[in-house]
């Protein structure tokens, strides 16, 4: 993975830049010590490491604004960071860049139950929001598995999902407003406490923009009343096909479960060995289907799903009878990543989405690739929305294995696109999938995305090297290659 060439001129000015930043954020807020900087050298994608030139930890919006304006005026690159759990290298620092740590923005500013929203700073953790409103029976719906650690600012940047997002949506469907700072220091408000805002939906554009458009300094999220009840079914199948058909049949029956997760045989084995959740080991695929909502609805739907599963050849089936049992069903799935981490020195988590009907074919081809690359793969899968998480097992200490794992991963993602899916369902493009973007988008598609970038950050100083395989200069993108009179179709009517 190549990052943009460090700018020697900027590196030469390191001391001067540190001094300028210290004038904005006094005291401990600017980090220049090489050992301390190492704490920021990677995020959740640990294969890539790069210490930043400097790190700065602002505490106020005014400081963020002044830092950005300084970087803008002096052409210094800047990489925002929340908790550093990104799995796509979104928060990977740059050798000649300033890392902007948003961890000190960790206050909950307002709980507004009458308007069913909460106003928080971006460094508040995802779970922190739900915890803060739990006493009133509310919660914040998107629930990435990293929710204890990841920040809402990171969630906004990545448009993070979770196991409940088929029914409750991703981050973008649950954020009402943002305060953000542009690279030139301008502070903007997008949306607010109302559902719809007039004008271009720049709030929607910011969410999922991977830290390339601006720095988020405040987030207003919707909070929902916690469902009255939740029950889960643990269903084993003799084949991936029958499990996939069952998922399709549940949805075709008009049922949108709160969660619907699938695991393949290697993932089941790893999870069961790790947490002893009571998963059947003699099945090819395991489904967890969770129904949530009013008690009457859960009880009714659990029976309907049971019938559908039986009709699709389920070889084992258990319905949770207590909250403990429901949580036990989930324990294995939730621990799937660390469980796989126990059976392999390293693993690489992929994140493509496919049309669900293509699942058996995709799993079969993945197995072929696994043989070809000589690397094992375990699959956990947000079955309801087709979001695959293949976990490729490798050993970074074995020469060449990381590269093989990466090549295998890239092949999986190309396969996702080939069958009509996409490169990433919830983890973002980052540096990881940057060079795969042309598999999904042609040059004109990417140029239009970059024109949006140019409107926000014309000099490309925010998080460069991420998302786009090639950054074109904005002046070049602005040029139009149409000349007066030189029409492609001379038979066209004249205006």
């Amino acid at each position, binding site marked *: 993975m190549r990052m943009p060439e460090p700018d020697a001129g900027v590196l030469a000015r390191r001391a001067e830049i540190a001094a300028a930043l210290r004038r904005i954020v006094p005291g401990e807020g600017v980090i220049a010590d090489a050992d301390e900087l190492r704490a920021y050298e990677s995020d959740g994608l640990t294969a890539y490491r790069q210490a930043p030139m400097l790190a700065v930890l602002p505490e106020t919006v005014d400081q963020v604004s002044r830092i950005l304006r300084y970087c803008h005026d002096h052409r210094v690159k800047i990489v925002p960071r929340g908790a550093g759990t990104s799995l796509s290298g979104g928060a990977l620092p740059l050798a000649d860049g300033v890392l902007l740590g948003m961890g000190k923005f960790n206050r909950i500013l307002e709980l*507004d139950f009458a308007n*069913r929203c909460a106003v928080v700073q971006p460094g508040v953790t995802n779970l922190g929001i739900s915890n803060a409103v739990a006493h009133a*029976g509310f919660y914040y719906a998107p629930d990435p598995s990293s929710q204890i650690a990841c920040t809402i600012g990171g969630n906004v940047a*990545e448009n993070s999902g979770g196991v409940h997002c088929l029914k409750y*949506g*991703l981050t973008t*469907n649950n954020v009402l407003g943002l305060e953000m700072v542009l690279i030139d220091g301008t*502070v903007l408000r997008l949306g*607010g406490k*109302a*559902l719809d*805002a*007039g*004008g*271009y*939906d*720049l*709030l*929607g554009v910011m969410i999922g923009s991977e830290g390339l458009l601006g720095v988020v300094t405040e987030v207003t999220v919707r909070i929902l*009343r*916690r469902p009255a009840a939740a029950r889960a079914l643990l269903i084993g199948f003799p084949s991936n096909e029958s499990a996939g058909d069952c998922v399709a049949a549940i949805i*075709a*029956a*008009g049922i*949108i479960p709160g969660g619907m997760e699938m695991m393949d045989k290697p993932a089941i084995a790893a999870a069961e060995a790790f947490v002893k959740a009571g998963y059947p080991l003699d099945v090819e695929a395991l489904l967890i289907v969770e129904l949530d*909502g*009013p*008690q*009457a*609805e859960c009880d009714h*739907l659990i029976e309907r799903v049971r019938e559908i599963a039986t009709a699709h050849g389920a070889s084992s089936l258990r319905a949770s009878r207590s909250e403990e049992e429901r949580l036990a069903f989930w324990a294995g799935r939730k621990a799937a990543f660390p469980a796989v981490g126990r059976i392999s020195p390293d693993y690489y988590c992929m994140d493509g*989405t496919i*049309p669900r009907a293509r699942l058996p074919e995709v799993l079969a081809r993945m197995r072929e690739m696994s043989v070809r690359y000589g690397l094992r793969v375990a699959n956990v899968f947000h079955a309801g*929305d*087709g979001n695959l998480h293949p976990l490729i097992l490798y050993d970074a200490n074995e020469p060449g294995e990381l590269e093989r794992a990466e090549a295998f991963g890239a092949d999986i993602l190309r396969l996702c696109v080939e069958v*009509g*899916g*996409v490169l990433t*369902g*919830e983890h*973002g*493009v980052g540096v990881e999938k940057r060079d795969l*973007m042309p598999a*999904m*988008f042609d040059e004109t598609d990417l*140029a*239009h995305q970059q*024109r*949006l970038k140019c*409107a926000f950050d014309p000099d490309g100083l925010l998080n460069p090297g991420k*998302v786009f395989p090639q950054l074109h200069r904005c002046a070049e993108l602005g040029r*139009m290659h*149409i*000349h*007066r009179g030189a*029409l*492609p179709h001379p038979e*066209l*009517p004249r*205006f």
Partner: protein
Amino acid sequence: MQGAFDEAGERGLTEFLPGDEGELRDIVAAAAGERQPLEVIGAGSKRALGRPLQLPHSLVLSRFSGIVAYEPSELVLTAKAATPLALLEAALGENNQMLAFEPPAWGRLLDGADSGGAGGGQTVGGILACNLSGPRRFKAGAARDHFLGFRAVSGRGEVFKAGGKVVKNVTGYDLCKLMAGSYGTLAVLSEVTVKVLPRPEKTRTVLIFGPDAERAVAAMTAALAAPHEVSGAAYLPAGLARRSAVSYVAAGGTSVVALRLEGPAPSVLARASALRGELAEFGAGEELHGRNSAVFWREIADAAPFAIDGKRALWRVSLPPALAPALLRQVTAGSDVEYLLDWGGGLAWLAVAGAADGGAGAIRAALAGRGHATLIRAPAALRLAVAVFEPPAPGLAALTARVKAGFDPYGVLNPGRMYPPQG
């Protein structure tokens, strides 16, 4: 390309009727090359929405019609952008599915013409480009939340695509959000992919009679804070309730709060009785069953009670729900204003009579930046004189202009539809 346009006679208007994406691209590229603005038209059902355009050339997309792919169990549908919404909804209906954001049909509201059925002659691209959503918005999301991917021609005369054809995707910037609510000012959509969802098996509507606006918002707030998954929450004062085609609503002769419950039958019945019990303090109740519920919520989506008196300036105000009572007090004091509330108070429709500015000043003063007021219906002169969309703060206005310039550098797509053209 021959025959792809015709001269619309008396005013010397040119109407372009591209038949495929290549022709669409060439027309927009030519328009950009010659700096000739185009009015972009799907079915024309919303031409009276937004700032009025007086352009000599129009780009009519009616030939971009038809469903391209529909996989009910994938919850995804792809259609050409000018596919009539009615056609699309009929296909969904056959599979017991729907567009969960309940696209409103404002044909009758905007020009008094009967729009003929649910789809109202409008197109799927039009409803997405204007990001219009109905009563289920606060639970199921807006049009923008169901917009998964598209193909389009930007004002640069270039074909591009964004998003995907699966329900979960974060690859690249979410340009669907940018298109939703851009009123055709950035790009001309040629094909769209939307998320579709199962239709609820059963619907009940719990009615509470008699509350004033303040009590009504309190009742709706209590209902939405309960775990009953209410999917519609509206309030009609007596005068508007009387205009409903649903006799239970009209005959009460009083104001009414309506709360919708949808889902599997046993669940809906259990929730309806629980909700009535919990809200007993707010007044006597009644229940609408499936058919009456459908008629009633269609009226709310389409703002049907306001179709009667077309002379009033009609505003749609998105606001924090708890602010609704104060807003109504301020705006109605001493003025002739009819209103109804939707989205649990988060959406106020205001029909203003007798104010020179259509009520713009009073409404925006009462909102004080906390919400967004859009002028939905007014004579063209008024839509030119006052800001139709909430005026953005200066920093946001500048950013908006830069985004517009990136996608449509010569301002050829619906220039002035949202904000006065610059310079």
